[in-house]
């Protein structure tokens, strides 16, 4: 059956070389369009998630601000100031809160080898590294609980800072730098990461020391901002509300006052991406599919020509006892084979393009990727198009009157 179909296909292709070539080209083009567009969509989505996660892993960042609603006899416009102790005391009362860290920031001068570098320094707790995806280069580590407890003078450097200060190829871990005259041991360097958004500075330009050390050295009491992470992204709104109400009681501001401290919920961005990328992928898929449909119309057209050319043959076969199902199947199989050939060629081309995609563009649009989902969708569309394209010519072949057909 399949062998017969392949032989027949071979003969048809020979008798209609140019037409078949153009038809298959249409299918190849359509397949390339669908797979590549979807592949770029997939790559772009992954890149966006990756760079967004560069800032943090489903976190909320919060800054204390000014009250906007009078409360318990206190006027509006009052500055809300938060200490690390405030955070620690409300923390057990907030359900679904997984991690939290205060952040004290300042611009310091760092001295190494008699050279001075201005550096943005943050005093944070060890949980901060997990939330903000601060991953040390192997051989180093991020701040830990002992650093916090003992107010150790240790520093974790952004990769750009490390490069500026120590130069390329030198491992800064174990070296000592001076901050405002105090010696600090370098315990780790940030692994270079992609980051699309930031506050203060980009992580590559920052340095982190234990929050306790920061406070001891500067005498600062009030934090600059704090970062927290709900147990799941879905809970972020509830956790924020719960935190706001707990803090409002302690710091005496109206729980409805959104300006007492402002929150940047990064998870909202993720949710937006999800919707946006779905719409974007759908759009790309539809554009590609339409191209593929045009190719399918070409296939249907050529199969009509083939049926016309082989009317006599169909008549003879019917006279010899071929049922309409056999005739229908013959043309459907042939159409599906043509479609499969076009589809396979298109797939191969798309995979090739993805393989040679220049790495220099990856930072902007991500790496196009023919995922199993992309492949599945394309195969599905091709299959439907093949069936539809083959169905009508095949049905008209199967409906031929053998007496009339044989006279052709």
């Amino acid at each position, binding site marked *: 059956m399949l062998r017969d179909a392949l032989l027949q296909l071979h*003969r048809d292709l020979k008798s209609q070389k140019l037409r078949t070539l153009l038809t298959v080209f249409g299918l190849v083009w359509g397949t390339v369009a669908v797979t590549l567009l979807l592949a770029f969509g997939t790559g772009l989505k992954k890149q966006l998630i990756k760079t967004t996660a560069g800032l943090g892993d489903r976190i909320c960042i919060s800054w204390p601000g000014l009250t906007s609603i009078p409360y318990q006899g206190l006027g509006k416009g009052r500055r809300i100031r938060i200490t690390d102790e405030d955070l620690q005391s409300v923390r057990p009362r907030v359900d679904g809160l997984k991690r939290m860290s205060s952040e004290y920031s300042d611009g310091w001068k760092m001295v190494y080898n008699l050279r001075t570098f201005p550096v943005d320094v943050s005093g944070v707790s060890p949980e901060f590294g997990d939330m903000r995806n601060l991953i040390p280069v192997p051989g180093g580590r991020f701040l830990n609980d002992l650093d916090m407890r003992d107010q150790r003078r240790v520093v974790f450097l952004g990769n750009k800072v490390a490069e500026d200060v120590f130069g390329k190829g030198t491992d800064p871990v174990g070296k000592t730098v001076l901050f405002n005259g105090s010696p600090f041991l370098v315990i780790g360097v940030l692994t270079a990461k992609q980051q699309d958004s930031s506050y203060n500075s980009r992580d590559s330009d920052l340095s982190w020391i234990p929050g306790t050390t920061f406070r001891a050295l500067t005498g600062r009491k009030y934090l600059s901002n704090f970062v927290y992470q709900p147990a799941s992204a879905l809970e972020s709104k509830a956790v924020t509300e719960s935190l706001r109400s707990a803090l409002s009681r302690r710091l005496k501001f109206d729980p409805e006052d959104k300006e007492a401290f402002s929150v940047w919920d990064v998870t909202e961005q993720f949710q937006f991406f999800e919707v946006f990328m779905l719409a974007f992928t759908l759009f790309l898929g539809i554009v590609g599919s339409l191209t593929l449909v045009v190719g399918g119309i070409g296939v249907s057209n050529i199969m009509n020509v083939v049926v016309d050319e082989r009317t*006599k*043959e169909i008549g*003879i*076969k*019917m*006279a*010899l*006892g*071929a*049922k*309409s*199902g*056999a005739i229908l199947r013959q043309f459907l199989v042939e159409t599906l084979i043509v479609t499969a050939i076009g589809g396979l060629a298109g797939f191969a081309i798309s995979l090739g393009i993805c393989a040679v995609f220049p790495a220099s563009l990856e930072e902007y649009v991500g790496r196009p990727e023919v995922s199993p989902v992309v492949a599945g969708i394309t195969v599905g569309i091709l299959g439907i198009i093949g069936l539809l394209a083959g169905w009508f010519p095949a049905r008209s072949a199967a409906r031929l*009157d*053998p*007496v009339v057909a*044989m006279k052709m």
Partner: protein
Amino acid sequence: MSSRPEKNPLPTGRAIIEMDGIRKVYDTGKVKVEALKGVDLRIEKGEFVAIVGPSGSGKSTLMNLLGCLDTPSGGDYFIGGEKVAGLTRDALAEVRNRRVGFVFQAFNLLPQISAFENVEMPLVFGGVPPKVRRAKAAELLGKVGLGDRMDHKPTELSGGQMQRVAIARALAMDPDIVLADEPTGNLDTTSGTDIMGVFLDLWKQGSTLVVITHDMVLARRASRIVEIRDGRIVSDRAAEQAA
């Protein structure tokens, strides 16, 4: 062929072909053409019937109806005791496959495949297993004297050889009846005589043959001559020179 098992046993008292008042009307929009105006025809197993008549007499229509390629507008038709009128397209295809072997004036072989594959074709549609059908195709091609030409394409064969392939194909499913429509019409005299010889051999071996022709030389070799004119049978007689 005498050892052939009886595939379609004929009920006692029935003829292979039984037509009662068969009518065929072609409806071409405004004009209705009545091609057959009530044909009664009975053909017994083992007969060699020639159907003759001028062109336009309804010969071809009768041939199409006999071969179940077309359905009558009225009347009853039984082939091998099986009622044919009112069958669906697919059921008719099956009847053709099982009971009728066609030999056409224009040979109607499939040009792209070999003589062997052409003979195999009805067996494929009949669902015969590959081993059996290959043996059968080879046997039949040997029988029509083309055992050494099995792999030739029809275009590589002479007219006479092509018609021999067509005859082998017609016999592939051991049909109740072989229907030949002007089988010598596209052949020169020598080949024509040759093909006639093949038919006579088949008849002697017990096949039931119906040949439609306007070649009286061929018709006279048959056992019975049915003459049709203007959609009616006008004469039905035993041929004088039956071989």
